[in-house]
C-alpha cells in the first residue's frame, strides 16, 4: 500500500516535467518572435519609429530660412540646438544625437525585416505582400542611410572620385556584433542606389496610407539622391517617372489661410505627401522663437498664396512658420510631390530640357499664386530659368531639410557661392562655402565605442 502510493507520488511528480508545453506559453499575449510576412509588415508600420522622428533636425536648425533673436536663442535648453544654430565646431557636448541614433535604429529594424523576409519562401498568394514589405524595408534602409550621409558624410558629386570622400557607417546586417566602421561615400552611394533600385523593381503601383513608402516615394527619393550627387540626367528621369504616376498638386487657392495650421493635421488626406515623416518638436524652431529670414520673405510676390499658408505674424514684428505639411507644430520631413516638381524642373533645366522645366515651373506656380492674377512664365534663357527655379524652390520648400542638401551641393557647382551669416546681438557668425562645418561631427559616444574617425570641423 505504502509502496503503491509512493510510486504514485513519484510518477505524478515526474509527469510535471513531462508537461513540456506548459512552460512554452508566452508570458504576454502580445509578445512575438517575428516570423511571418505580417509580423515584418507590422514592424515597418511602427509609426513612432519610421515616421515620427525623422533624422533631419541638424539640417533644419542649420538652415538659413530663419533666424533667432539672442534672447530666444539663449533660452534653448538643449545645447546641441544652440551650437548648431551658430555652426559651432563642437555640437553635441556629449549628448545624444537623435538624428544619428534614430536613423540607425530604423536601419536596424529594416535589416531585421529584410533578413526575416529572406528566410520566408512566400506562396504565390503571398508574393505580392512579400514584395511590398521587402521593398518598404529597402526604402527605409536607403532613406536613413541617405539622411545620415547628408549630415555626417563629406560632400562629393557624382563626377568626383567619391571613394576618396569619407562617408558613414553602412549597416547591411542586423547583427550587432559586426564592428562599426566608416566607409567612403562611393560605397554609401552605391548601397543607397542599389537598395532603391531593388525596391523600385519590387513595388507595383499600389498605394496604401502615406506612412508606408510606395513606388512613387522610391522614385522621388531616387530623384533627390541623384540631384544631391549632381547626376541631373538620372534625377530628371526618376522625377519624370514619379510624376507620370501621379502629379496632382494641392491648389492653395482652395485652402483657408486664416487657420492656425492651413494643411490637414498629420498629413491625413494631404495629396502631395508621398511618404509621411516629421521631426519631433525642435525647441529652436518653436513658433514662438523662429523668425523667417526677411530676405526670403521679400521674394514672395503679394499674390503668392504661400505667404498666407506658410507664415503668420509672431506678434513682435516678424513672421513665424505655420506651413508644415503635417498641419501642426512638427516640421514635415518626409517626401512630397511638390519637391519632385522642383527637383524635376531644376534637373530638366540643367540638362537643357528648358520647355519641360518651364512647364513644370508653371504647373506648380499656378497652384500657388492667386489664380486671378497668375501670368505664366515663358521665354527665358537657361541661366535665368535656373535662377528662377532655385528661387522658387526656396519659396516652396521653406524649412524642409532639402535646403541643407542644396547648400552642400551649391558649394560644388559653378553657381554663386553663399556665405551664411548668423547674428546674435553684435556677435556675427559666418559659414563660408567649402567650410568643414558643412559636415557634422560624429557624436562623441560613437567614437568612444567604435573608434571611428572624427570629421575635421
Amino acid at each position, binding site marked *: *500500500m*505504502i509502496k503503491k*502510493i*509512493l510510486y504514485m507520488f513519484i510518477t*505524478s*511528480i515526474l509527469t*510535471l*516535467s513531462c*508537461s513540456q508545453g*506548459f*512552460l512554452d*506559453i*508566452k*508570458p*504576454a*499575449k*502580445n*509578445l*512575438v*518572435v*517575428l516570423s511571418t510576412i*505580417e509580423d515584418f509588415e*507590422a*514592424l515597418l*508600420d*511602427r*509609426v513612432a519609429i519610421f515616421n515620427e522622428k525623422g533624422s533631419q533636425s541638424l539640417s533644419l536648425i542649420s538652415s538659413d530660412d530663419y533666424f533667432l533673436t539672442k534672447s530666444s536663442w*539663449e*533660452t534653448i*535648453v538643449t*545645447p546641441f540646438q544652440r551650437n548648431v544654430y551658430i555652426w559651432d565646431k563642437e555640437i553635441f557636448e*556629449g549628448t*545624444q544625437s537623435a538624428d*544619428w*541614433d*534614430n536613423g*540607425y*535604429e530604423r*536601419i*536596424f*529594424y529594416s*535589416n*531585421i525585416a529584410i533578413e526575416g523576409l529572406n528566410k520566408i519562401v512566400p506562396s504565390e498568394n503571398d508574393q505580392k505582400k512579400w514584395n511590398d514589405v521587402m521593398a518598404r524595408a529597402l526604402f527605409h534602409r536607403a532613406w536613413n542611410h541617405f539622411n545620415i550621409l547628408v549630415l555626417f558624410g563629406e560632400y562629393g558629386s557624382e563626377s568626383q572620385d567619391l571613394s576618396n570622400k569619407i562617408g558613414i557607417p553602412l*549597416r547591411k546586417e542586423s547583427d*550587432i556584433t559586426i564592428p*562599426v566602421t566608416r566607409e567612403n561615400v562611393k560605397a554609401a552611394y552605391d548601397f543607397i542606389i542599389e537598395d532603391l533600385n531593388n525596391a523600385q523593381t519590387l513595388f507595383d503601383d499600389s498605394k496604401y*496610407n502615406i*506612412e508606408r513608402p510606395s513606388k512613387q516615394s522610391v522614385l522621388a527619393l531616387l530623384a533627390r539622391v541623384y540631384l544631391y550627387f549632381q547626376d541631373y540626367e538620372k534625377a530628371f528621369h526618376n522625377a519624370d517617372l514619379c510624376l507620370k504616376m501621379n502629379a496632382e498638386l494641392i491648389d492653395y487657392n482652395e485652402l483657408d489661410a486664416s*487657420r*492656425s495650421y492651413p494643411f490637414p*493635421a*498629420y498629413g*491625413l488626406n494631404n495629396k502631395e505627401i508621398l511618404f509621411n515623416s516629421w521631426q519631433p518638436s525642435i525647441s529652436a524652431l518653436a513658433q*514662438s522663437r523662429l523668425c523667417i529670414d526677411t530676405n526670403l520673405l521679400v521674394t514672395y510676390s503679394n499674390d503668392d498664396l504661400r505667404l498666407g499658408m506658410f507664415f503668420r505674424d509672431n506678434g513682435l514684428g516678424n513672421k513665424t512658420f505655420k506651413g508644415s505639411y503635417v*498641419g*501642426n507644430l512638427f516640421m514635415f520631413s518626409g517626401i512630397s510631390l511638390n519637391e519632385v516638381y522642383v527637383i524635376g524642373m531644376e534637373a530638366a533645366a540643367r540638362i537643357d530640357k528648358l520647355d519641360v522645366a518651364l512647364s513644370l515651373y508653371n504647373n506648380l506656380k499656378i497652384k500657388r499664386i492667386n489664380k486671378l492674377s497668375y501670368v505664366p512664365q515663358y521665354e527665358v534663357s537657361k541661366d535665368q530659368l535656373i535662377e528662377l527655379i532655385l528661387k522658387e524652390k526656396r519659396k516652396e520648400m521653406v524649412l524642409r531639410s532639402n535646403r541643407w542638401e542644396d547648400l552642400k551641393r551649391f558649394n560644388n557647382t559653378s553657381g554663386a557661392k553663399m556665405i551664411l551669416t548668423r547674428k546674435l546681438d553684435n556677435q556675427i557668425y559666418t559659414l563660408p562655402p567649402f567650410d568643414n562645418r558643412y559636415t557634422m561631427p560624429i557624436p562623441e*559616444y*560613437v567614437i568612444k*565605442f*567604435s573608434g571611428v574617425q572624427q570629421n575635421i570641423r
Partner: protein
Amino acid sequence: MKLKCYFFLLFLSILATGIKGQSIRDVSGIIRSEGTNEPIAGVTLQIHGRTIFYVTGEQGRFTIPQVRDSMMLHISHVQYKSKTIIINNKLDELIIHLERNEGEIQEVAVYATGYTLIPKERAAGSFEIFDKKKLNQSLSSNILDRLDGLSGSLALDRRAAMQTEGGKTDVSLRLRGMSTLMSDARPLIIVNNFPFEGKLSDINPNDIESISFLKDASASAIWGAKSANGVIVIQLKQSKIGESKSINALFTTRISNKPNLYANNRFISAPEYMGFEEIMFNRNYYRDEKTILLSPYVHLLSKKHKGLIDENEFQFEKSKFMEQDIRKQADQYLYQNAIDKIMNINMSGGSSLHSYLFSIGYDDVKPVLVGNSNSRLSLRVDNKIRITSKFEAQFSIDYIHRMERNNSVSLFDQSGIVPADKNMIYPYASLIDINGEPTRSAIAFNPFFLDSFNQSHNRDWLFSPLEELDIRDNTYKNNSIRMFSNLNYKLSKDLTISANYIFNSTNGDRINHFTADSYYTRNLVNRFMQGPGSFIIPNGAIRHKTVDSSRKYGGRMQLDFNKNIFNKLSINSLVGGEISSYISIFDPLQILYNFSKDNYIGQNIFDYTKYYTVNPDGAQRIPSSNSQIYELTDRFISYYGLGTLMWDNRYLLTTSLRWDGSNLFGVKTNQKGVPLWSLASGWLLHNEKFMNNSKLSELKLRATIGENGNINKNATAYPTAVFTTNSSTGLREALLKTAGNPQLKWERVLSWNIGVDWALLKRSLGGSIDFFKKDAYDLMGLKEADPTTGINPILSGVKQMINYGKFESSGFDVRLFSKNNIGNNLIIDTDFSISKNWNKVVDYNVVPLGIQDYFQYIVPAVAGKSRDIFYAFPWYGLDSQTGAPLIMEEGNLTTNYTNVPKFLPENLINIGSSFPIWNGSFRAVLSYKQLSLSALILWKGKYNFRRSSINYQELLDSWNMHNDYYLRWQQPGDEDKTYIPAIPTTVDRNRELYYMNSDVLVERGDYIRLQSIQINYSLPLKNNLFKLDVIGVMENLGLIWTKNKQGLDPEYHLYYYNPPKQFSLGLRANF
C-alpha cells in the same frame, strides 16, 4: 479536470459539516490559571493511550469526544505545570486549574514557510514571526499599516507615494534591503501556502493568524527563483481539530481629523501671489493666446490693460481676491473627518473528527476627501475533516468584495481643482462666491476665448468644483475568491503524503460615468463643436469602463518524513513538486457616448479616423475605445526538498534544494530552470551538559549560506517584439523590445547569515543578533552599445539586457526582548528591534543621459557607489547684487547657468544615503491586571532628504507655490540672512535646477516617531465564559524627535499634508 476537483472539494466540505460526533460521552470543560482564574489558550489535552491531541481555544475551552469513565487525561502547557486527571462521575463540564510554572517563560514560536511549519528550536535560518497581538497594534483595515514598525528588517519606502494625495498606493517594501538593479524588488508574499500576486487590500487583516519573515537563504531558498528579495508568509486563521467552540467578535471605529491644510508649505497668501502675478504681467510674460490659460487675476489685469474695465471695477474685483484663501473653503467643502468602521465576527469549533471556522468582516472607510469611500466585505470558511485516523482533509474559501468610490474633488490633484497643465491652484480661488453660488472658473484655455465661446455657442466651458463634486460617479468593484484545499495521508508513523490545490480569481470593473453636465463631457463636446449648435460629440453622458481580472491556480504534492532514531537523532525532511499558473488580463477601455443610465444604451458609431478642427485650436480625433487586450501569464514548475537533522537537541544541520522552471520567453528548456540551494547549521549550546548550571535559558548559534533567485520577465532570449494598434494609422504595429540574449539566466543572490539567539534569567531577557551579507550577481542590466548598431539603452530604443550586474548589501538585525514581572500584577514587556543595512553597486556601466537623473529618488546605478546615494550641487551662497544663486565654473563664481545641465556627476557632492541605513522599532507593553497599555516607537537613522523650496519657474508655469517665497532675497545684504534666491528677471530653468538640487536644501532625515499607543481593558465579568475587551488606539501621533532644524517630517514632507492623527475605539468579545 478542474471541474472534477471542485466537485471533490465541495463534497468534502459538505461531508465536514454533516459529521456529528458519536460517542459514549463527550467531555468538555475549561482550563484556567490558578490564582488569576484567566482562561488559558493553547493547552494540550490527550487521553492516555490515544494519539490524538486536543488544544484549547481562546477561552480555554475544550471538548473531547468518546470518553469513558476512568480514562486518564493528560493536560500540559509550556508555561504551566502538567497535570493528569482521571475522568469519573458523571461530570460533563470540567473546570481544571493549572498552576503556573515558575520556571521558564517559554517563547512559543512556529515559523511558517509555506511548505512546512518549523518550530523555533529546529530553525537555523533567520526568521521572524509576528502574532495577532503584534499585528493588532494598529487597527487599520490595511495590512501595510500593520506591517509598519513590526521589525527593523522591513522598511517601507514611501517616496514614490508622495506625489499623490492620500497616496498609500505606491508604498514599496524592502525586506533586508535591496538585491537587484532593474528587476522586481518586491518581497515574495505567500498566502495559503502559495505566492500571492493579488492586492494586499484583498486580505482582511483580521483573518490573519501570523506573519513570518523569511530573511536569509536557509529560510527562503526553498522558494527558489522568486525569493531573492525575501519572503513574507501570511498565515490565515484556520480551524483546529479538537478545538472547542468559540466566537470572537470585533467592532471598531476609527476616526481621523481633517488634514490640517494650513500646516503646509505649499501656499503663499493671496496678496503675495497676486503681487508676483502683477510683476510678471508687467514684464509681458503672459501671452494672450487662445490656448493659454490665464489665472483670474491675470485675466483681470489683462481686462484693465485692454480697457475693458475701469479702475474702480478693477479695484473692486481685486479686493475680493485679496481676501480669499482657498484653504478655508476647501476645508469646509472638500475635506471631512475620516471614519473607518470595522466589524469582524468569527466562529470556530468542531469535534474530534472535524473543525470549522467561519469569519465575516465588513470594513467601511470614509476617507478625508469628501466623495470618496471604500468598503470591503470578506467571508472566510475553513473546514477540516479527519476522514480516518490517517487521512485528513482541509478546505477553505475566501470571498472578498471591494467597492471604491472616487468622486472627490481634491485641492491638490489635477483630478480635482488643479488645471490640467498646472500643479496647484492659485490661493485666491474660491468654491462659493459671496452670493453663495458655486464658483465657476476657467481651468483650460484663455478665459477671454472661453467667454466669447460660451456666449456665441450658448455653452458652458467653465469648471465648478462643487457642482462637479455632486455629479461625479466613478466606481470600482472587485470580487476576489480564493480557494485552498489540502489532503493529508499518513502512510506510516514517519511518512506523510499531502496534496495542496489553490485557485484564486479576481475580477474588477471600473466604471466612470461622466454626466452631460460634468466638466469632462462639456469640455469634450465644446472642443469638437463646429460652430453654434453643431455638435460632433453628442451632448450626453459618456461612460468609460475598464475591466481587469486574474486567475491563479497551483497544485503541490509533498512527502514529509519525520523520524526520531535512538531518541537522539531527529530527522525532518520533505520533498515535493508543484506547478502554478497566474494569468492577469486587462480588457481595453470601452467608451460609450450619449449614454443613458436609465436604459443602458449608448452610441459608439462615429468617424474615429477623421481629424476634426477643434476649439480653440488644432485638430483631433474623437476619443475611441482601446483596441488591445493585455494578457500576461506566469507559469512555474518547481521541485524542492528540505532536510533537517538534529542530534540530541544540540546540533542542527539543514539543507534545502530547489529547481524552478518558468515560461521565460524563448529560453531553451534546459536553461529555464536553475537549482538554488541552502545549507545551515546550528548549535544549541543551552542543551549542552556544561551549560547546565548557567543562567542561560537559550543560547543558539546559527550559520547559513545559500542562493536565492530573481526573475526579470522583460528579458528574452530571442529578439522579440510586442504588437499594438497604432492610433493614427489603425494598423497593427510591432515594437522591438529586446535584441535578445541567448545566454539569459536568472539573477542570483548568494547570501550569508550568522546569528545567535539567547535568553537568560528564565527567559525574562533575551534576543537575537544576525549578521548578513548578500552578493547578488548575474543581475539583469542594460548593456551599453554603440547606437549605430541599432541598440540604444538610453533613449527609448531597442534594449539589450544581459546578466552582468553585481550588487552587494550587508548589515545586521538585532532584537532584544524582556519580560519583567515587577510584582503586584504589574508586567512590563518590551521588544526592541534594530537593523542596519547598506549596499553597493559592484558592477554596472550605463551612463545616464542627464544630470537631472541624479536627483531622482532612484538614482542611476554607478559601480562603486551605493544605490541609495544622495547627490547635490555644491552651494556657494547668493550673489550680493542680484540675489541669484552662485555657481562655480572653472574656479570662478558666476550666475550664468547655461552650463548647469552639462555638469558632470563628478561635480556633484555625495551626501550619505537617501534611504535610512538604520531602521528600528521599540514596542513596550505595560500590563496591570486587566489593563494593558502598549506603545510603538519607530526610529530611522542616517539618511537625508531634499526639502522643497520655491521654484520660480514652477511658480510661474505651474502655479506651484512655496512659503519660502516670504524669506527670499529682496535687497543687497539679504544674502547674509537667507539662502532663498530672489525673483529672477528672466525665469531660467537651469538656475532653478541648481538651487532646487543644491546641498543647502538637503536635510538629515533621522527621526523618532511615536507611531501608536494602545490601551486594552478586559472587563472583569463575573461570567467567566464571556470575555469582553475594550480597545483604544491612537495612531500617527507624530515625531518625538527629528534631526532637521526645520521641523519637517522626513517621511511625509512631500505629502500634501501630514497624515492626520487617528483615534480608534474597539470592542472585542470572546465567548
